[in-house]
C-alpha cells in the first residue's frame, strides 16, 4: 500500500512540475514540486522510506529536468531523505510552520548540494543566491498548501471509511 502511495505521489509531483513548466514557465523556476514527496515521507514517514523516496525522486528529477550527470539528484536527495527522516523522528514537524521551515530548508540544501557537486564536477555555473532563496521560500509555501489539501483529503477519507 505504501509503495502505491509513493508511486502515486511521485507521479503527481512529476505531472504537477511538468504542467507548471508548460503553463507558467516563469513560476516553474521558483517551485520544485518533485521535492515534496521527500519532505512528506521525511516528516511523516520514516528514515528508510524518506531515503528511498529521495532516491527515486532525485532520479526522476535528473531524467526530466537536468542535463548534468545523471545520478546527482538521486545522490543529493537520498542524503536529504536520510537527514530529514532523522529529524522527523526526533521532532514533530508535521504542522504548517514545521512543514514550511523544513521544505524551505530542504530546497535550500538541495540547491547548495547541487552547487557543490557541480563545482566538484567542474561544471560552469552562476551563483544563483537570490533565485535559490526565492525557490526555497516558494517551494515551502507550496508544500504548506499542498500538504494541507492532502490532510483534508485524508481526513475526509477516514471519516467516510468510519461511516461505511
Amino acid at each position, binding site marked *: 500500500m505504501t509503495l502505491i502511495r509513493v508511486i502515486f505521489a511521485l507521479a503527481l509531483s*512529476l505531472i504537477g512540475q511538468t504542467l507548471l513548466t508548460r503553463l507558467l514557465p516563469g513560476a516553474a523556476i521558483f517551485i520544485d514540486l518533485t521535492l515534496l514527496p521527500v519532505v512528506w515521507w521525511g516528516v511523516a514517514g520514516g528514515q528508510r522510506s524518506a531515503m528511498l523516496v529521495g532516491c527515486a525522486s532525485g*532520479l526522476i528529477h535528473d*531524467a526530466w529536468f537536468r542535463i548534468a550527470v545523471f545520478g546527482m539528484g538521486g*545522490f543529493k536527495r537520498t542524503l536529504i531523505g536520510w537527514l530529514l*527522516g532523522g529529524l522527523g523522528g526526533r521532532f514533530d514537524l508535521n504542522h504548517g510552520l514545521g512543514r514550511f521551515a523544513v521544505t524551505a530548508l530542504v530546497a535550500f540544501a538541495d540547491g547548495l548540494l547541487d552547487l557543490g557537486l557541480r563545482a566538484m564536477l567542474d561544471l560552469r555555473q552562476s551563483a*544563483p543566491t537570490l533565485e535559490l532563496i526565492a525557490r526555497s521560500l516558494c517551494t515551502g509555501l507550496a508544500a504548506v498548501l499542498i500538504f494541507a489539501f492532502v490532510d483534508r483529503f485524508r481526513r475526509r477519507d477516514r471519516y467516510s471509511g468510519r461511516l461505511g
Partner: protein
Amino acid sequence: MRSAGSGIVRKNALLLVVLLFAQLLIMTGNARRADGATQLESWTISLTSPFVSISEGFGGGIRGIWEGLADLVGAHGRNSALEIQTQQLRAELRRAREAELENDRLRQLLQMRDSLSPRSIGASVIGSRNTSTEKMLILDRGESDGVLPDQAVVAWGGAVGRVVEVGRSHAKVRLLTDPNSGIAGVIQRTRAQGMVQGTGGETLDFLYVSRLDDVIYGDRAVASGSVGIFPRGFGIGRIVNIDEQADGSRRIKLRPEIDYRELEEVLILLEPIAGESLLPPGLSDEP
C-alpha cells in the same frame, strides 16, 4: 528496546551507504559516456513518460482553451483588417509564383543544387528546465529518429541549442543561454567575430570581440558557422549592452532572438552543416 532502536539506526545507515554508493556508480558510468543518455536514464524516462504525456495533454488543453478565449476577444475587430491583408497576399502570391518559375529556370542554368536545406526533423518540446544553473529542453525525438549528440536545434528565427543526450525516443538539448553553452558568432553588419556564451540568465555574453571592431547597440549577432555545429547566418541575438572595461576589454551582452520559454516545436538538423549558409542564394547574410 534500546538495542532495537540502534539496530534500526544501523540498518538505515547501511541502506544510506548502499544507496549513495549506487548513485556514485551511476554518476561514474554517466560521466564516462559522452555519446548520450545512460540505459538507466532512458528507462526512467520511458517508465515515467506516461505521466508527462498526461500533463502535456492536460496542459495543452488548458493552454488551447485560454488562447482560444483570448483570440475570440479580438476576432471581430481583426476580421476587416484580415480581409484587406488577404487581398494583398493574393497579389503577392501571384508575384511569388512568377518568381518561382524564374528561379527554377535560373537554377537549372547555374546547375545549382535543388536545395540548400539540410535534412532535418521536427520535434515537440516535452519538458524543460530554466534555472540559472541549467537551461535545457527535452524533445520527443531520439535515436530511433536519427537524432545524435551534437546536432543543432533551431527554431523559426534562430539557433536554439545543441543536442547533448539522446535516448531511444527522447533527446536533451542544452540551450544557448545555459552557462555551459558556447557558439561562434559574428556581427551581421560588420562581420566582427566573437564567441557567444550562455550566462544562465536571460542574456548571452559576446566574448573576445576586438576593441577595434565596430559594434553598436542593436547590432544583430548570427552564427558564424566557422566553428561548431550551427549553420552560418542563423540568428543568435541582438546587442543590448556594451561595457568598456578598465583593462581595455569589452563586455557585450546579447538578448536572444528566441524566447526559449515559449518554444513548443523545434527543428533538429540531422546533418553536420557548419560553415554552410541556409539562406537562399542571392539573399546573403552578409551586409
